[in-house]
């Protein structure tokens, strides 16, 4: 009995949405912290807007003529059903996908996503401010951890697992690339080798958004430097949110799939093209190519993996 194309699609998106919910929470946390520490007039709002740009929801936000203050943005990112990437929308979409494939996931996975949704849907947006907001954002990240834990601990390592993992890491690669692209200019090499306060603040933002501000120290034993930060999030194979880690993981998973089904597919080629961008290169080469151009190309190739995967395995 072969898996339905729709089931594969549901599994893929289930994982993508869980990952996205977590990333949205992380981005909001960064935006929130930055807005608190901003001393300039209008600075808070700018941070929130650039955070929404990274999440690619800035246009949806602007379309309704809203003021980018902390409460409005937090509400928009957390609870707005019209924002397709809000935590609300992501958790609902994750649960809907999970419900459609209840027979293809384990009861622990179902439990984890179902109870997360049931709890989240009880929260009244008005009650979530200040410290409560940070607490809630932690909780959203925990949902991701719990779900992945249930997944890794209970599911069969078959085609379903590969679709779940592919969704998870395609979403993560996209997220990391976007965070980098949002602030790529502060990472560019400059004549002045020491970053000012402003740069340090921006770098912290980038690292925090990738949950990498502490692990950075473990890897580099050094103060924050633009070159290192870019290297860490793009080329470090031990960093689980770096582009190279994600790209290799995606390629491996798709290889597992083509082995499982006994046939190579166009998505295998797309995944290898994605990986080739970050494999066997260094930051100097990438800076020469142009960091922004590089990230744009990476995001496009990542999308191509997602599209060809849909075609190769009959999502519809």
């Amino acid at each position, binding site marked *: *009995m072969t*898996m339905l194309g*729709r089931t594969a699609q549901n599994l893929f998106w289930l994982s993508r949405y869980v990952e996205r919910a977590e990333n949205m929470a992380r981005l909001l946390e960064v935006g929130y912290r930055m807005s608190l520490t901003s001393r300039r007039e209008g600075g808070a709002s700018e941070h929130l807007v650039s955070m929404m740009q990274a999440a690619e929801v800035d246009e949806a936000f602007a379309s309704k003529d809203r003021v980018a203050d902390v409460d409005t943005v937090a509400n928009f990112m957390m609870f707005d059903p019209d924002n397709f990437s809000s935590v609300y929308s992501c958790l609902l979409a994750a*649960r*809907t996908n999970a419900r459609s494939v209840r027979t293809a996931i384990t009861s622990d996975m179902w439990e984890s996503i*179902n109870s997360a949704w049931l709890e989240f849907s009880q929260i009244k947006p008005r009650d979530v401010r200040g410290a409560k907001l940070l607490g809630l954002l932690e909780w959203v990240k925990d949902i991701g951890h719990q779900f992945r834990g249930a997944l890794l601990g209970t599911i069969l390592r078959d*085609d379903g697992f590969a679709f779940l993992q592919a969704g998870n890491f395609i979403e993560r690669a996209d997220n990391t690339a976007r965070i980098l692209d949002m602030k790529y200019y502060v990472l560019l090499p400059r004549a002045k080798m020491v970053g000012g306060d402003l740069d340090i603040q921006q770098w912290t933002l980038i690292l925090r958004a990738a949950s990498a501000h502490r692990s950075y120290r473990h890897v580099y034993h050094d103060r924050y430097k633009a070159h290192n930060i870019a290297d860490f999030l793009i080329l470090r194979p031990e960093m689980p949110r770096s582009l190279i880690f994600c790209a290799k993981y995606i390629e491996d998973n798709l290889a597992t799939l083509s082995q499982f089904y006994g046939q190579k597919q166009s998505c295998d080629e797309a995944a290898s093209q994605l990986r080739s961008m970050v494999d066997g290169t260094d930051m100097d080469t990438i800076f020469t190519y142009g960091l922004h151009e590089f990230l744009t190309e990476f995001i496009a190739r990542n999308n191509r993996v997602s599209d060809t995967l849909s075609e190769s395995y*009959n999502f519809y």
Partner: protein
Amino acid sequence: MAENPPFDEMYNPDGSVREPYRALAQWLEEQPDKALTLMQSDAEAIFRKLGITFAVYGSAEGTEKVIPFDVIPRIIAAQEWRRLSKGIEQRVKALNAFLYDIYHRQEILKAGRIPDKLILQNEAFCPEMMGLEPARGIYAHIIGVDIVRVGPDAFYVLEDNLRTPSGVSYMLEDREAMMILAPDLFQRQKVAPVENYPENLRRTLESVAPANASASPNIVVLTPGIYNSAYFEHSFLADQMGATLCEGPDLFVDGGKVYMRTTTGPERVDVIYRRIDDDYLDPLTFNPGSMLGVPGLFDAYRAGNVTLVNAPGTGIADDKAVYTYVPEIIEFYLGEKALLQNVPTYNCTDEEQRNWVLSNIGDLVVKEVHGSGGYGMMVGPTSTKAMHAEFRKKIEARPDNYIVQPTLALSTCPTYVNAGIAPRHVDLRPYVLIGDEVRITPGGLTRVALKKGSLVVNSSQGGGTKDTWVLED
């Protein structure tokens, strides 16, 4: 309302315990204080964990309820069950013979045993089924017969469900929960197993695969999708019997055969256990607006390339107006007297009966002929005078649209309630599978009205379920 107290399945009127309940009574006595309270809360946790829910219509996204489960099982003696299951088998055989006949030669109509208008003009009659030869001549493969008990030997059939009877997942999960909650109780007596229902369902479905299917037929469960109130059951059954759970868009018809879209391309489908109503099965033949169905599915069925379970058009056999003729149907096709009684039903088109009904409406149950799920129904003794008047008018205006029955004193079983253990009214839905043979799962789903004195067992109106035990000799 009945004058006598209702029949209690556990205690005789003198307070002694009826034979099948002996072991249970002793077990209950041995339980320390609060044991049942603990069991009841454990049960709720188990059900939540198992994820057995039903969606509540009209409520917000994600609100799914757990049907209340009562920890005290209902017990049926072996010889009682033998009698019941014989009656059920007789009934489902006759109903299938009836379906074959009315979709072919219509001998029963020619013989004048049933008025032809009642069938031919009936909404539930499906003319598209005429002349079709279903595998093994079976139309209704899965039937849930609703039975009520009013005395030690008095069982009545309330309704035959031949469309897509639901609830079997509760029967299975009730047993699962009971074995976790009170394993020692199972050691004291032999309880007939229900766990092989999914395996039997699979065998039944395989046995009715089309002649040109592969040796191990591909079986799918077709669901309207995650927003259907019985979605849990659909996914549960698919999971339990190793079938693929499909929605309409997962299937398509090519060259008159049905395929499902898999990750590796189209895969032929041989048997479809469909939980979609007839009208929505195929927009090409039935409701053109249906987004749930599969265009061309009925034609593929007609061409003999796939089996639909149950067949479309089986609803004619459980129509409330046809119900009154079931004893007649059994005699006509099997040449036997019906073993199970119908509930006496008054025919309002007959003037004498109608007049009697109109003057006694406060004691009677009125049901709309095409209503279901407790809608369009009035229970006389628990309704207001205004309701009585309203239904009098309705019956006078359209006497053929209603059937009227006496209010039955449903039997009671001891049930755990806030006040302790108290008798509550119950009914029974045994599940029957018809394929290469007739398989009746011992027991079935017992529904219990948790409100004191209530006769309404529907889960939407405060009903719960009980594990149902058939004892083995």
